[in-house]
C-alpha cells in the first residue's frame, strides 16, 4: 500500500467513523482496528511493562506529535483524534480499543488500572508501516517512570494555552509532592516564593476569551488565598489548610481543562459536535467552583494568622493609592 493509498483509507475511515458521535464513534470497530495495531506494538516493544491507559494515550500522542513534525502532509494519525483534557490530550478511541483488547483477551487488566499482554498472547502485528514501528520503538523502549514524567512535559509544550504547562509543572505537580504529606518539615522559603511567582505568572496567562471571564476572576481569587496560605507556611505548616489548598488547586485545573477543550486549537475536528454540551458542562461547573472558592476563602480567614495591625510604609501607600484610584477613576462613583 502506498502512502497516498493509506492516507485515503484513513481519511475515509475517519469520515465514516465520526460522522455521528465523535465520543463514541458509530463504527467503533473500524477505528479500533486502526488503533489496535499501534497498541499491540507498544506492548510488543516492552512486553513486561504494565502500562496504564494514560501511558498509552501519551505514547500515541507523542507518536502523533513526532510524525506530524516529520510528515506534515501525511496526517495518518487522524484516526486517533484527541482533545485536551485533565491529563493532557485524550483520545476516546484509544481507551475504547484497550477495553476491546481486554474483552478479546489480548490484554489482561489488573486491579491497579494497569494492563499487560495476556499470557500466551503472541501475535504477529501486521499493517503498520516500518517508519511507524521505528518511531514507536524510539518512544517506548526507554519507558519508565521518570521518562513518563518527561514525556508528559514534552507533550505539554504542544498545549493549547501557555497556562497549562506553567500551572501544571511549575505549581500543581511540585505542590502535590509537599501538600499531601502528613508531617511537614519546614519548607524552604525559595520554594514558596517560586510557587507564588508561578501563580502570578499563571494569572496573566489565563486566556482572555469570553467564556473564560468568570474563570479568570475565580483563578485570581484562588491566587490571593493560596498565596496567603503559602505565606503562613513560612512559619508553620497547617496540614489541613495545605490539603484544602491542593484540593481547590486540583478543581481549578479540572475546570480549566473543561473550558479549554472548547477552543479550536484544543480539539480535533471530529469533536466540534460536542462543543455545545462541553460549554454547558463548563458553565455549570464554574458555578460550583465559585462556591468552592468561597468556602476556601472562609477557611483561609479562619486558619491563617495575620499580623495585627497591618502596617504600610510610604511607598506601599503610594502604590495602593494608585491601585485604588485606578478603580475609582473607572467607576462613576462621585
Amino acid at each position, binding site marked *: 500500500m502506498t502512502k497516498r493509498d493509506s492516507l485515503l483509507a484513513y481519511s475515509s475511515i475517519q469520515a465514516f467513523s465520526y460522522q455521528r458521535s465523535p465520543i463514541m464513534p458509530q463504527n467503533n470497530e473500524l477505528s479500533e482496528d486502526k488503533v489496535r495495531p499501534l497498541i499491540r506494538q507498544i506492548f510488543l516493544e516492552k512486553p513486561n511493562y504494565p502500562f496504564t491507559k494514560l501511558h498509552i494515550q501519551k505514547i500515541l500522542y507523542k507518536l502523533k506529535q513526532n510524525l506530524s513534525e516529520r510528515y506534515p502532509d501525511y496526517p495518518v494519525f487522524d484516526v486517533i483524534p484527541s482533545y485536551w483534557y485533565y491529563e493532557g490530550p485524550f483520545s476516546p478511541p484509544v481507551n475504547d480499543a484497550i477495553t476491546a483488547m481486554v474483552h478479546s483477551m489480548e490484554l489482561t487488566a489488573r486491579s491497579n488500572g494497569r494492563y499487560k499482554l495476556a499470557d500466551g498472547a503472541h501475535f504477529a502485528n501486521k499493517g503498520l508501516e516500518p517508519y511507524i514501528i521505528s518511531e514507536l520503538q524510539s518512544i517506548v523502549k526507554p519507558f519508565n517512570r521518570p521518562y513518563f514524567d518527561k514525556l508528559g512535559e514534552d507533550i505539554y509544550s504542544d498545549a493549547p494555552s501557555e497556562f497549562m504547562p506553567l500551572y501544571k509543572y511549575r505549581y500543581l505537580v511540585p505542590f502535590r509532592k509537599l501538600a499531601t504529606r502528613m508531617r511537614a518539615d519546614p519548607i524552604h522559603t525559595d520554594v514558596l516564593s517560586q510557587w507564588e511567582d508561578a501563580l502570578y505568572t499563571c494569572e496573566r496567562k489565563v486566556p482572555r476569551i469570553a467564556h473564560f471571564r468568570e474563570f479568570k476572576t475565580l483563578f485570581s*481569587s484562588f491566587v490571593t488565598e493560596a498565596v496567603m496560605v503559602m505565606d503562613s507556611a513560612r512559619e508553620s505548616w497547617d496540614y489541613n489548610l495545605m490539603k484544602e489548598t491542593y484540593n481547590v488547586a486540583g478543581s481549578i485545573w479540572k475546570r480549566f481543562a473543561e473550558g479549554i477543550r472548547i477552543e479550536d486549537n484544543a480539539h480535533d475536528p471530529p469533536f466540534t459536535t460536542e462543543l455545545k454540551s462541553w460549554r454547558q458542562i463548563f458553565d455549570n461547573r464554574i458555578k460550583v467552583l465559585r462556591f468552592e472558592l468561597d468556602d476556601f476563602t472562609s477557611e483561609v480567614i479562619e486558619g491563617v494568622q495575620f499580623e495585627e495591625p497591618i502596617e504600610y510604609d510610604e511607598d506601599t501607600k*503610594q*502604590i495602593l493609592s494608585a491601585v485604588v484610584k485606578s478603580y475609582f477613576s473607572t467607576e*462613576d462613583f462621585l
Partner: protein
Amino acid sequence: MFPDHFLDANVMVGSKMWLDKHHTIATEYTERVDREKIARHTSQLAFNESKRVFEQIREIGGGYLDALSKYHYTTENILSEMLQCQTEYEKTQNLSDNEKERLFSFINDIYRSSQIVRCIQQDTINGVSNFKNDVLKGIKKATKDLHNDVKMQRLHLYRRFESPNPQRRVRYAEAAHLRRNLSNVIVDNDNDVELLIDAYYLRNEYGIANLCFVTFDNKHFFGQNDANRTDIEAILRGIYVQHPSYGPPQTQSD
C-alpha cells in the same frame, strides 16, 4: 441611628488608600461607625469584588511591569517610553476598555509618585522588577488587611442561607420577584442587584430591623435626583441606602 451597616466593596476598598478624597471620606466614616459601635456587615459577593480591585491590577499591572522591565528604551523621556510600552502591551494582551483605563490611570499615578521613575533611572531591568515586586507585596498586604477585618470580627462576612434559623430565610419566589423589580431600577448591573439582595437576605436571616446599605456608587444606588435610592428603599423594606459622606444616618425614631 442604624446599629447595622452593610458595606459595599467600594467602601471597604476606599479605606485602603491614602491620597484621595475617597480615603478621607471612608476613613471618617470608619471612625464614626467605630465610635458609635455600629455593626459592620458585608457579603461574600462584595468581599470578592473588593479583592478583585487589587487582583485586577496585580494581573494587568504586574504583566505591564514585566513587559516594561524587558522594554527597549530609545529616549530619555520615561513617561513617553512607559506609555509606548503600554500601547504595545495592550495589543498583545487584548485588554478590555475598562482594563485599559485602569492600567492608564495606574501608570499615570505611579509615574507621578516618582517611585518608578527613580527605579528606572537607577537600573532599568532590576529597577522595574523590584518595583513590580513592591506592587505585588503591597497588594498582598492590602488583601490580607481585608481578610483581617473579617478575622478580627471588625466586619461580619455574610454568606447566603447561613442563618441557623431556616424560618427566616427568604423564599425563592420572593427573592426572584425582588430581583426583577430591582433590575428595573439598576438596569445595567446585575452585581449591584445581587448586593442589594444580599443585604435583604442578611436583614431577614439575622432579624435586623433596619439595615443601612453604605456605598460610594452614586450612579447605581442614588441615580438622578436620588430616584434610585427612593425606589430601592420602596422595594426592599428595611433597607436604607446611604453615602459614606452623609452625616450619621438617622432612623425615623431618631
